[in-house]
Protein backbone atom coordinates (compact mmCIF):
# COMPACT_ATOMS: atom_id res chain seq x y z
CA UNK A 1 0.00 0.00 0.00
CA UNK A 2 1.21 3.40 -0.87
CA UNK A 3 1.96 5.57 2.13
CA UNK A 4 0.43 8.97 2.32
CA UNK A 5 3.00 11.57 1.46
CA UNK A 6 3.68 14.34 3.94
CA UNK A 7 4.74 17.72 2.65
CA UNK A 8 7.68 19.22 4.46
CA UNK A 9 8.80 22.77 3.96
CA UNK A 10 12.51 22.94 4.53
CA UNK A 11 12.96 26.67 4.74
CA UNK A 12 13.08 29.50 4.26
CA UNK A 13 13.36 29.75 8.03
CA UNK A 14 15.17 26.57 8.81
CA UNK A 15 18.51 25.98 10.45
CA UNK A 16 19.45 23.33 7.96
CA UNK A 17 19.07 25.36 4.82
CA UNK A 18 22.08 26.97 3.24
CA UNK A 19 20.94 30.52 3.20
CA UNK A 20 17.50 31.83 2.57
CA UNK A 21 15.68 29.47 0.27
CA UNK A 22 13.13 26.75 0.47
CA UNK A 23 12.95 23.11 -0.48
CA UNK A 24 9.50 21.73 -0.49
CA UNK A 25 9.71 18.00 -0.17
CA UNK A 26 7.13 15.29 -0.13
CA UNK A 27 8.11 12.44 2.05
CA UNK A 28 6.79 8.96 2.40
CA UNK A 29 8.09 7.74 5.71
CA UNK A 30 11.61 9.05 5.65
CA UNK A 31 12.05 8.89 1.91
CA UNK A 32 11.67 11.86 -0.35
CA UNK A 33 9.44 11.28 -3.33
CA UNK A 34 9.32 14.77 -4.72
CA UNK A 35 11.32 17.90 -4.17
CA UNK A 36 10.83 21.40 -5.39
CA UNK A 37 13.18 24.25 -4.63
CA UNK A 38 11.79 27.69 -4.32
CA UNK A 39 14.13 30.62 -4.56
CA UNK A 40 13.68 34.34 -4.81
CA UNK A 41 13.98 35.27 -1.18
CA UNK A 42 17.20 37.08 -1.85
CA UNK A 43 16.46 38.63 -5.20
CA UNK A 44 17.77 42.16 -5.24
CA UNK A 45 17.96 42.55 -9.01
CA UNK A 46 21.66 43.28 -9.12
CA UNK A 47 21.75 43.10 -12.86
CA UNK A 48 19.04 45.70 -13.08
CA UNK A 49 20.76 47.89 -10.53
CA UNK A 50 24.02 47.70 -12.40
CA UNK A 51 22.36 49.19 -15.44
CA UNK A 52 21.84 52.38 -13.47
CA UNK A 53 25.36 52.42 -12.04
CA UNK A 54 28.45 53.12 -14.02
CA UNK A 55 31.18 50.64 -14.69
CA UNK A 56 33.01 51.40 -11.48
CA UNK A 57 29.98 51.75 -9.27
CA UNK A 58 28.75 48.36 -10.47
CA UNK A 59 31.85 46.86 -9.02
CA UNK A 60 30.79 47.50 -5.45
CA UNK A 61 27.67 45.41 -5.86
CA UNK A 62 29.59 42.36 -6.91
CA UNK A 63 30.71 40.99 -3.60
CA UNK A 64 27.08 40.72 -2.51
CA UNK A 65 26.37 38.17 -5.21
CA UNK A 66 27.72 35.35 -3.14
CA UNK A 67 28.69 36.35 0.33
CA UNK A 68 30.78 33.39 1.49
CA UNK A 69 33.21 33.79 -1.36
CA UNK A 70 32.90 37.16 -3.06
CA UNK A 71 36.28 37.38 -4.69
CA UNK A 72 35.72 35.15 -7.72
CA UNK A 73 32.80 37.37 -8.66
CA UNK A 74 34.95 40.48 -8.45
CA UNK A 75 37.61 38.66 -10.39
CA UNK A 76 35.19 37.64 -13.13
CA UNK A 77 33.87 41.15 -13.49
CA UNK A 78 37.30 42.69 -13.49
CA UNK A 79 38.51 40.30 -16.13
CA UNK A 80 35.42 40.70 -18.27
CA UNK A 81 35.88 44.46 -18.23
CA UNK A 82 39.57 44.14 -18.98
CA UNK A 83 38.83 41.76 -21.81
CA UNK A 84 36.35 44.14 -23.35
CA UNK A 85 38.49 47.19 -22.89
CA UNK A 86 41.81 45.54 -23.66
CA UNK A 87 43.26 46.81 -20.43
CA UNK A 88 46.51 45.27 -19.30
CA UNK A 89 46.96 44.13 -15.74
CA UNK A 90 50.35 44.42 -14.07
CA UNK A 91 52.04 41.15 -13.22
CA UNK A 92 52.08 41.88 -9.50
CA UNK A 93 48.38 42.51 -9.50
CA UNK A 94 47.84 39.11 -11.07
CA UNK A 95 49.75 37.43 -8.30
CA UNK A 96 47.91 39.38 -5.64
CA UNK A 97 44.66 38.38 -7.26
CA UNK A 98 45.59 34.72 -7.17
CA UNK A 99 46.54 35.14 -3.53
CA UNK A 100 43.16 36.68 -2.82
CA UNK A 101 41.28 34.05 -4.76
CA UNK A 102 43.01 31.20 -3.00
CA UNK A 103 42.58 32.76 0.42
CA UNK A 104 38.92 33.22 -0.41
CA UNK A 105 38.73 29.62 -1.53
CA UNK A 106 40.16 28.53 1.78
CA UNK A 107 37.82 30.76 3.75
CA UNK A 108 34.90 29.41 1.82
CA UNK A 109 35.94 25.82 2.38
CA UNK A 110 36.36 26.50 6.07
CA UNK A 111 32.80 27.69 6.12
CA UNK A 112 31.83 24.60 4.20
CA UNK A 113 33.57 22.43 6.81
CA UNK A 114 31.27 24.02 9.32
CA UNK A 115 28.17 23.79 7.19
CA UNK A 116 28.66 20.23 6.05
CA UNK A 117 29.32 19.00 9.56
CA UNK A 118 26.65 21.16 11.07
CA UNK A 119 24.17 19.52 8.75
CA UNK A 120 25.29 16.18 10.12
CA UNK A 121 25.33 17.23 13.74
CA UNK A 122 29.07 17.52 14.28
CA UNK A 123 29.00 21.04 15.62
CA UNK A 124 32.50 20.92 17.03
CA UNK A 125 33.89 20.97 13.53
CA UNK A 126 31.96 24.11 12.72
CA UNK A 127 33.14 25.80 15.86
CA UNK A 128 36.71 25.01 14.97
CA UNK A 129 36.76 25.75 11.30
CA UNK A 130 34.56 28.80 11.33
CA UNK A 131 36.58 30.07 14.24
CA UNK A 132 39.83 29.42 12.42
CA UNK A 133 38.40 31.03 9.32
CA UNK A 134 38.68 34.28 11.21
CA UNK A 135 42.42 34.09 10.79
CA UNK A 136 41.94 34.26 7.05
CA UNK A 137 39.41 37.02 7.44
CA UNK A 138 41.99 38.89 9.51
CA UNK A 139 44.32 38.65 6.55
CA UNK A 140 41.60 40.01 4.31
CA UNK A 141 40.98 42.82 6.73
CA UNK A 142 44.62 43.72 6.73
CA UNK A 143 44.91 43.60 2.98
CA UNK A 144 41.63 45.04 1.84
CA UNK A 145 40.09 46.82 4.81
CA UNK A 146 37.08 44.58 4.99
CA UNK A 147 36.44 41.23 6.57
CA UNK A 148 33.75 39.93 4.30
CA UNK A 149 33.23 42.47 1.58
CA UNK A 150 36.63 43.07 0.13
CA UNK A 151 35.89 45.15 -2.94
CA UNK A 152 39.50 44.68 -3.73
CA UNK A 153 39.93 43.13 -7.14
CA UNK A 154 38.81 45.72 -9.61
CA UNK A 155 39.31 46.41 -13.28
CA UNK A 156 42.93 47.22 -13.92
CA UNK A 157 44.42 45.39 -10.99
CA UNK A 158 43.88 45.51 -7.27
CA UNK A 159 43.02 48.41 -5.05
CA UNK A 160 45.95 48.53 -2.70
CA UNK A 161 49.38 47.01 -2.54
CA UNK A 162 50.30 44.40 0.02
CA UNK A 163 51.02 45.99 3.37
CA UNK A 164 54.42 45.54 4.98
CA UNK A 165 55.03 42.14 6.46
CA UNK A 166 51.89 40.75 4.94
CA UNK A 167 53.61 37.84 3.24
CA UNK A 168 55.01 36.61 6.54
CA UNK A 169 51.63 36.80 8.13
CA UNK A 170 50.10 34.79 5.31
CA UNK A 171 52.75 32.13 5.65
CA UNK A 172 52.33 31.94 9.39
CA UNK A 173 48.59 31.60 9.02
CA UNK A 174 49.10 28.88 6.43
CA UNK A 175 51.38 26.97 8.81
CA UNK A 176 48.81 27.22 11.54
CA UNK A 177 45.96 26.14 9.33
CA UNK A 178 47.92 23.24 7.95
CA UNK A 179 48.35 21.99 11.47
CA UNK A 180 44.69 22.47 12.19
CA UNK A 181 43.67 20.63 9.05
CA UNK A 182 45.14 17.49 10.59
CA UNK A 183 42.86 17.93 13.58
CA UNK A 184 39.98 18.38 11.21
CA UNK A 185 40.86 15.13 9.50
CA UNK A 186 40.89 13.25 12.79
CA UNK A 187 37.56 14.62 13.80
CA UNK A 188 35.80 14.48 10.50
CA UNK A 189 37.24 12.34 7.76
CA UNK A 190 38.46 9.60 10.08
CA UNK A 191 35.14 9.58 11.83
CA UNK A 192 33.24 6.41 11.09
CA UNK A 193 29.89 8.04 11.60
CA UNK A 194 30.74 10.83 9.20
CA UNK A 195 31.70 8.22 6.67
CA UNK A 196 28.51 6.30 7.22
CA UNK A 197 26.44 9.40 6.81
CA UNK A 198 28.10 10.56 3.62
CA UNK A 199 29.05 7.49 1.67
CA UNK A 200 26.50 6.49 -0.88
CA UNK A 201 24.35 9.52 -0.29
CA UNK A 202 23.49 11.98 -3.02
CA UNK A 203 25.15 10.07 -5.81
CA UNK A 204 25.66 11.79 -9.14
CA UNK A 205 26.81 9.58 -11.97
CA UNK A 206 29.41 10.73 -14.45
CA UNK A 207 26.97 10.87 -17.33
CA UNK A 208 24.45 12.78 -15.34
CA UNK A 209 27.07 15.23 -14.17
CA UNK A 210 27.81 16.21 -17.75
CA UNK A 211 24.20 16.19 -18.80
CA UNK A 212 23.07 18.41 -15.95
CA UNK A 213 25.85 20.92 -16.21
CA UNK A 214 27.57 20.09 -12.96
CA UNK A 215 30.70 22.11 -12.27
CA UNK A 216 33.45 22.53 -9.75
CA UNK A 217 34.24 20.20 -6.87
CA UNK A 218 30.96 18.42 -7.41
CA UNK A 219 32.00 17.48 -10.92
CA UNK A 220 35.46 16.52 -9.74
CA UNK A 221 33.80 14.40 -7.10
CA UNK A 222 32.24 12.45 -9.97
CA UNK A 223 35.66 11.58 -11.30
CA UNK A 224 35.83 14.16 -14.08
CA UNK A 225 38.86 16.36 -14.10
CA UNK A 226 37.61 19.80 -14.87
CA UNK A 227 38.91 23.01 -13.43
CA UNK A 228 38.88 26.40 -15.11
CA UNK A 229 42.21 27.19 -13.52
CA UNK A 230 43.67 24.46 -15.73
CA UNK A 231 41.27 24.34 -18.68
CA UNK A 232 40.97 28.03 -19.36
CA UNK A 233 43.78 29.47 -17.27
CA UNK A 234 43.51 33.02 -16.04
CA UNK A 235 45.83 35.31 -14.16
CA UNK A 236 48.96 33.31 -13.39
CA UNK A 237 47.56 29.89 -12.69
CA UNK A 238 49.46 28.47 -15.64
CA UNK A 239 52.69 29.39 -13.93
CA UNK A 240 51.84 27.70 -10.67
CA UNK A 241 52.26 24.10 -9.73
CA UNK A 242 49.21 22.44 -8.27
CA UNK A 243 47.05 19.44 -8.91
CA UNK A 244 43.35 19.19 -9.45
CA UNK A 245 42.09 16.41 -7.22
CA UNK A 246 39.37 14.13 -8.45
CA UNK A 247 37.48 11.41 -6.69
CA UNK A 248 35.34 8.57 -7.93
CA UNK A 249 31.95 7.95 -6.47
CA UNK A 250 29.96 11.11 -6.88
CA UNK A 251 28.54 11.01 -3.38
CA UNK A 252 28.89 13.48 -0.53
CA UNK A 253 31.93 11.63 0.68
CA UNK A 254 33.71 11.99 -2.64
CA UNK A 255 32.92 15.67 -2.79
CA UNK A 256 34.14 16.13 0.74
CA UNK A 257 37.40 14.40 -0.10
CA UNK A 258 37.87 16.60 -3.14
CA UNK A 259 37.41 19.66 -1.01
CA UNK A 260 39.72 18.29 1.63
CA UNK A 261 42.46 17.99 -0.94
CA UNK A 262 41.70 21.29 -2.58
CA UNK A 263 42.14 23.28 0.57
CA UNK A 264 45.61 21.78 0.80
CA UNK A 265 46.31 22.68 -2.79
CA UNK A 266 45.28 26.22 -1.97
CA UNK A 267 47.86 26.38 0.75
CA UNK A 268 50.39 25.12 -1.74
CA UNK A 269 49.41 27.75 -4.29
CA UNK A 270 49.52 30.51 -1.72
CA UNK A 271 53.03 29.55 -0.71
CA UNK A 272 54.13 29.58 -4.33
CA UNK A 273 52.49 32.92 -4.94
CA UNK A 274 54.21 34.46 -1.96
CA UNK A 275 57.49 33.08 -3.16
CA UNK A 276 57.11 34.22 -6.75
CA UNK A 277 55.45 37.56 -6.10
CA UNK A 278 57.12 40.09 -8.41
CA UNK A 279 57.58 43.70 -7.50
CA UNK A 280 56.17 46.56 -9.49
CA UNK A 281 52.87 48.25 -10.11
CA UNK A 282 49.71 46.78 -8.70
CA UNK A 283 47.20 48.85 -10.57
CA UNK A 284 46.70 50.02 -14.11
CA UNK A 285 44.67 53.08 -13.38
CA UNK A 286 41.26 53.48 -14.96
CA UNK A 287 40.13 56.88 -16.28
CA UNK A 288 37.87 59.17 -14.34
CA UNK A 289 35.10 56.78 -13.27
CA UNK A 290 32.33 59.22 -14.06
CA UNK A 291 33.28 59.27 -17.69
CA UNK A 292 34.74 55.83 -18.10
CA UNK A 293 33.26 54.20 -21.14
CA UNK A 294 33.83 50.74 -22.49
CA UNK A 295 33.84 49.99 -26.18
CA UNK A 296 30.77 48.43 -27.72
CA UNK A 297 30.62 44.70 -27.42
CA UNK A 298 30.36 41.92 -24.91
CA UNK A 299 32.68 39.75 -22.91
CA UNK A 300 32.41 36.73 -20.69
CA UNK A 301 34.98 35.86 -18.07
CA UNK A 302 34.79 32.93 -15.74
CA UNK A 303 36.53 31.92 -12.59
CA UNK A 304 36.78 28.73 -10.61
CA UNK A 305 35.15 29.29 -7.27
CA UNK A 306 34.60 26.76 -4.54
CA UNK A 307 31.18 26.11 -5.93
CA UNK A 308 32.36 25.75 -9.47
CA UNK A 309 32.29 27.99 -12.47
CA UNK A 310 31.21 31.54 -11.79
CA UNK A 311 31.18 33.86 -14.73
CA UNK A 312 30.37 37.40 -15.56
CA UNK A 313 28.88 38.38 -18.87
CA UNK A 314 28.89 42.06 -19.64
CA UNK A 315 27.46 43.98 -22.55
CA UNK A 316 28.48 47.50 -23.32
CA UNK A 317 26.78 49.87 -25.69
CA UNK A 318 29.70 52.23 -25.54
CA UNK A 319 28.37 54.30 -22.70
CA UNK A 320 29.44 54.86 -19.13
CA UNK A 321 26.95 52.35 -17.81
CA UNK A 322 26.68 48.65 -18.48
CA UNK A 323 24.03 47.77 -20.96
CA UNK A 324 23.55 44.49 -19.24
CA UNK A 325 25.49 42.30 -16.92
CA UNK A 326 24.75 38.74 -16.17
CA UNK A 327 26.23 36.68 -13.43
CA UNK A 328 26.44 32.98 -13.91
CA UNK A 329 26.59 31.30 -10.57
CA UNK A 330 27.52 27.70 -10.00
CA UNK A 331 24.66 27.26 -7.60
CA UNK A 332 22.37 28.22 -10.43
CA UNK A 333 22.69 24.76 -11.93
CA UNK A 334 23.28 22.93 -8.67
CA UNK A 335 20.64 24.51 -6.53
CA UNK A 336 17.53 23.97 -8.57
CA UNK A 337 17.29 21.30 -11.22
CA UNK A 338 20.08 19.12 -9.89
CA UNK A 339 19.06 19.40 -6.26
CA UNK A 340 15.44 18.65 -7.06
CA UNK A 341 16.46 15.54 -8.91
CA UNK A 342 19.11 14.45 -6.47
CA UNK A 343 16.84 14.56 -3.45
CA UNK A 344 14.39 12.04 -4.84
CA UNK A 345 14.82 8.73 -3.08
CA UNK A 346 17.05 10.17 -0.40
CA UNK A 347 16.37 10.21 3.30
CA UNK A 348 14.80 13.36 4.60
CA UNK A 349 17.64 13.57 7.12
CA UNK A 350 20.12 14.10 4.32
CA UNK A 351 18.59 17.13 2.63
CA UNK A 352 20.79 19.56 4.44
CA UNK A 353 23.90 17.46 3.93
CA UNK A 354 23.26 17.18 0.21
CA UNK A 355 22.62 20.86 -0.16
CA UNK A 356 25.82 21.66 1.64
CA UNK A 357 27.80 19.23 -0.42
CA UNK A 358 26.54 20.85 -3.61
CA UNK A 359 27.60 24.24 -2.36
CA UNK A 360 24.18 25.71 -2.85
CA UNK A 361 24.34 29.44 -2.39
CA UNK A 362 20.91 31.05 -2.87
CA UNK A 363 22.04 34.66 -3.31
CA UNK A 364 23.99 33.46 -6.29
CA UNK A 365 20.92 31.89 -7.84
CA UNK A 366 18.67 34.88 -7.48
CA UNK A 367 21.14 37.72 -7.41
Amino acid sequence: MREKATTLYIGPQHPGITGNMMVKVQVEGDTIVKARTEVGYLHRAFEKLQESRNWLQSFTLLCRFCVPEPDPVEESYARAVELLEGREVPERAKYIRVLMLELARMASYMLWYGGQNGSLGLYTMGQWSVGDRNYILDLFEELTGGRVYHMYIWPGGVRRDLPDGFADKVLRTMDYLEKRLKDYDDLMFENTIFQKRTQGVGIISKEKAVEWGVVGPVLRGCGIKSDIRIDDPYEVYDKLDFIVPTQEGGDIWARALVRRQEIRQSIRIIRQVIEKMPSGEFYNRIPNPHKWTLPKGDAYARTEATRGEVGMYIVSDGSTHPRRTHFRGAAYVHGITLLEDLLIGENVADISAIMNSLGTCPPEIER
Partner: protein
Amino acid sequence: MMNDKNSQKIVDIIQNWARKHSIWVLAYGTGCGAIEIPPTMTSRYDAERLGVRGAATPRQADVLLITGYLTVKTMKRVIRVYEQMQDPKYVIGFGSCTINGGMYYDSYNTIKVLDKYLPVDVYINGCMPRPEAVLSGFAQLQKRIAEGRANGAQQYKDNLEWYRANQKKIIPNWIMPDYNW
Protein backbone atom coordinates in the same frame (compact mmCIF):
# COMPACT_ATOMS: atom_id res chain seq x y z
CA MET B 1 3.57 43.83 53.05
CA MET B 2 4.52 45.21 49.70
CA ASN B 3 1.85 46.41 47.43
CA ASP B 4 1.26 44.85 44.07
CA LYS B 5 2.95 47.52 42.08
CA ASN B 6 6.20 47.27 43.91
CA SER B 7 6.30 43.53 43.82
CA GLN B 8 5.48 43.63 40.14
CA LYS B 9 8.41 45.97 39.70
CA ILE B 10 10.78 43.65 41.45
CA VAL B 11 9.51 40.70 39.47
CA ASP B 12 10.01 42.72 36.32
CA ILE B 13 13.56 43.50 37.24
CA ILE B 14 14.35 39.86 37.91
CA GLN B 15 12.59 38.70 34.78
CA ASN B 16 14.30 41.32 32.68
CA TRP B 17 17.62 40.26 34.11
CA ALA B 18 16.92 36.71 32.98
CA ARG B 19 15.71 37.86 29.59
CA LYS B 20 18.78 39.96 29.21
CA HIS B 21 21.11 37.08 29.83
CA SER B 22 19.32 34.57 27.76
CA ILE B 23 18.87 35.71 24.21
CA TRP B 24 17.85 33.05 21.78
CA VAL B 25 18.32 34.11 18.26
CA LEU B 26 16.16 32.72 15.54
CA ALA B 27 18.26 30.94 12.97
CA TYR B 28 17.01 32.78 9.95
CA GLY B 29 19.52 34.37 7.64
CA THR B 30 17.26 36.75 5.84
CA GLY B 31 20.05 38.48 3.98
CA CYS B 32 23.73 38.61 3.40
CA GLY B 33 24.42 39.69 6.95
CA ALA B 34 23.94 36.10 7.93
CA ILE B 35 27.53 35.57 6.90
CA GLU B 36 28.83 37.26 10.04
CA ILE B 37 26.54 35.26 12.31
CA PRO B 38 28.60 32.05 12.19
CA PRO B 39 31.80 33.85 13.25
CA THR B 40 29.87 35.59 16.00
CA MET B 41 28.51 32.32 17.27
CA THR B 42 31.67 30.27 16.93
CA SER B 43 34.89 30.02 18.79
CA ARG B 44 36.47 33.36 17.98
CA TYR B 45 33.70 35.57 19.31
CA ASP B 46 31.52 32.98 21.02
CA ALA B 47 28.32 34.83 21.62
CA GLU B 48 27.18 32.02 23.89
CA ARG B 49 29.28 33.63 26.61
CA LEU B 50 26.66 36.33 26.75
CA GLY B 51 23.79 33.91 26.75
CA VAL B 52 23.18 34.37 23.05
CA ARG B 53 22.44 31.15 21.27
CA GLY B 54 20.55 29.98 18.29
CA ALA B 55 17.00 28.78 18.33
CA ALA B 56 15.72 26.61 15.57
CA THR B 57 12.10 27.65 15.49
CA PRO B 58 10.32 30.94 16.02
CA ARG B 59 8.37 29.56 18.96
CA GLN B 60 11.50 29.27 21.00
CA ALA B 61 13.26 32.38 19.82
CA ASP B 62 13.50 35.76 21.48
CA VAL B 63 15.30 37.74 18.87
CA LEU B 64 14.67 38.06 15.20
CA LEU B 65 17.75 39.22 13.39
CA ILE B 66 16.99 40.96 10.17
CA THR B 67 20.36 40.44 8.63
CA GLY B 68 20.34 43.06 5.97
CA TYR B 69 17.97 43.64 3.12
CA LEU B 70 14.55 42.08 3.02
CA THR B 71 13.00 41.22 -0.26
CA VAL B 72 9.27 41.44 -0.53
CA LYS B 73 9.06 37.69 -0.73
CA THR B 74 11.08 37.24 2.44
CA MET B 75 9.18 40.03 4.12
CA LYS B 76 6.06 37.93 3.96
CA ARG B 77 7.81 35.05 5.71
CA VAL B 78 9.44 37.35 8.20
CA ILE B 79 6.12 38.77 9.26
CA ARG B 80 4.82 35.27 9.68
CA VAL B 81 7.85 34.27 11.68
CA TYR B 82 7.72 37.36 13.83
CA GLU B 83 4.10 36.79 14.67
CA GLN B 84 4.84 33.23 15.65
CA MET B 85 7.43 34.31 18.17
CA GLN B 86 6.46 34.52 21.78
CA ASP B 87 6.23 37.76 23.66
CA PRO B 88 8.58 39.36 24.69
CA LYS B 89 10.36 39.37 21.37
CA TYR B 90 12.91 41.67 19.90
CA VAL B 91 14.06 42.64 16.45
CA ILE B 92 17.57 43.70 15.60
CA GLY B 93 18.12 45.48 12.33
CA PHE B 94 21.42 44.63 10.81
CA GLY B 95 23.34 47.07 8.74
CA SER B 96 22.43 49.76 6.32
CA CYS B 97 19.76 47.95 4.39
CA THR B 98 17.35 47.84 7.29
CA ILE B 99 17.74 51.52 8.04
CA ASN B 100 17.28 53.18 4.71
CA GLY B 101 17.55 50.62 1.99
CA GLY B 102 21.31 50.45 1.86
CA MET B 103 22.81 49.74 -1.48
CA TYR B 104 19.51 48.40 -2.77
CA TYR B 105 17.72 51.67 -2.32
CA ASP B 106 16.51 51.63 -5.90
CA SER B 107 15.77 47.96 -6.18
CA TYR B 108 12.21 47.04 -6.95
CA ASN B 109 12.28 44.00 -4.78
CA THR B 110 13.61 45.02 -1.37
CA ILE B 111 12.01 47.02 1.38
CA LYS B 112 13.90 50.06 2.53
CA VAL B 113 12.67 51.07 5.95
CA LEU B 114 12.24 48.14 8.28
CA ASP B 115 10.50 49.90 11.14
CA LYS B 116 7.52 50.58 8.93
CA TYR B 117 6.76 46.89 8.97
CA LEU B 118 8.11 45.54 12.24
CA PRO B 119 9.01 47.19 15.53
CA VAL B 120 12.79 47.31 15.65
CA ASP B 121 14.68 47.53 18.92
CA VAL B 122 18.25 48.07 17.87
CA TYR B 123 20.00 49.00 14.67
CA ILE B 124 23.59 48.10 14.03
CA ASN B 125 25.71 50.18 11.75
CA GLY B 126 27.69 48.50 9.05
CA CYS B 127 27.63 46.61 5.80
CA MET B 128 28.11 44.03 7.09
CA PRO B 129 28.46 44.69 10.80
CA ARG B 130 31.44 42.71 11.94
CA PRO B 131 31.10 40.37 14.91
CA GLU B 132 32.20 43.01 17.40
CA ALA B 133 29.45 45.25 16.13
CA VAL B 134 26.97 42.41 16.32
CA LEU B 135 27.95 41.79 19.92
CA SER B 136 27.62 45.48 20.65
CA GLY B 137 24.19 45.30 19.15
CA PHE B 138 23.32 42.50 21.53
CA ALA B 139 24.78 44.53 24.38
CA GLN B 140 22.56 47.44 23.46
CA LEU B 141 19.59 45.13 23.30
CA GLN B 142 20.47 43.79 26.74
CA LYS B 143 20.59 47.30 28.05
CA ARG B 144 17.24 48.03 26.56
CA ILE B 145 15.75 44.88 28.02
CA ALA B 146 17.20 45.60 31.44
CA GLU B 147 15.70 49.05 31.37
CA GLY B 148 12.38 47.55 30.46
CA ARG B 149 12.11 49.45 27.22
CA ALA B 150 12.17 46.50 24.88
CA ASN B 151 8.45 46.22 24.40
CA GLY B 152 8.33 45.76 20.65
CA ALA B 153 5.73 43.04 20.83
CA GLN B 154 3.34 45.28 22.74
CA GLN B 155 3.99 48.09 20.33
CA TYR B 156 3.25 45.79 17.45
CA LYS B 157 0.00 44.67 19.00
CA ASP B 158 -1.06 48.21 19.77
CA ASN B 159 -0.32 49.51 16.31
CA LEU B 160 -1.21 46.38 14.45
CA GLU B 161 -3.47 48.16 12.00
CA TRP B 162 -0.80 50.59 10.98
CA TYR B 163 1.78 47.86 10.56
CA ARG B 164 -0.73 45.72 8.71
CA ALA B 165 -1.57 48.49 6.30
CA ASN B 166 2.09 49.03 5.53
CA GLN B 167 2.70 45.35 5.10
CA LYS B 168 -0.28 44.88 2.88
CA LYS B 169 0.81 47.71 0.69
CA ILE B 170 3.85 45.81 -0.48
CA ILE B 171 2.50 42.28 -0.26
CA PRO B 172 -0.25 42.13 -2.84
CA ASN B 173 -1.41 38.61 -2.18
CA TRP B 174 -2.08 38.50 1.52
CA ILE B 175 -2.95 34.95 2.36
CA MET B 176 -1.82 34.66 5.93
CA PRO B 177 -3.55 33.87 9.17
CA ASP B 178 -4.40 36.80 11.35
CA TYR B 179 -2.31 37.79 14.25
CA ASN B 180 -3.93 35.90 17.09
CA TRP B 181 -1.08 34.63 19.14
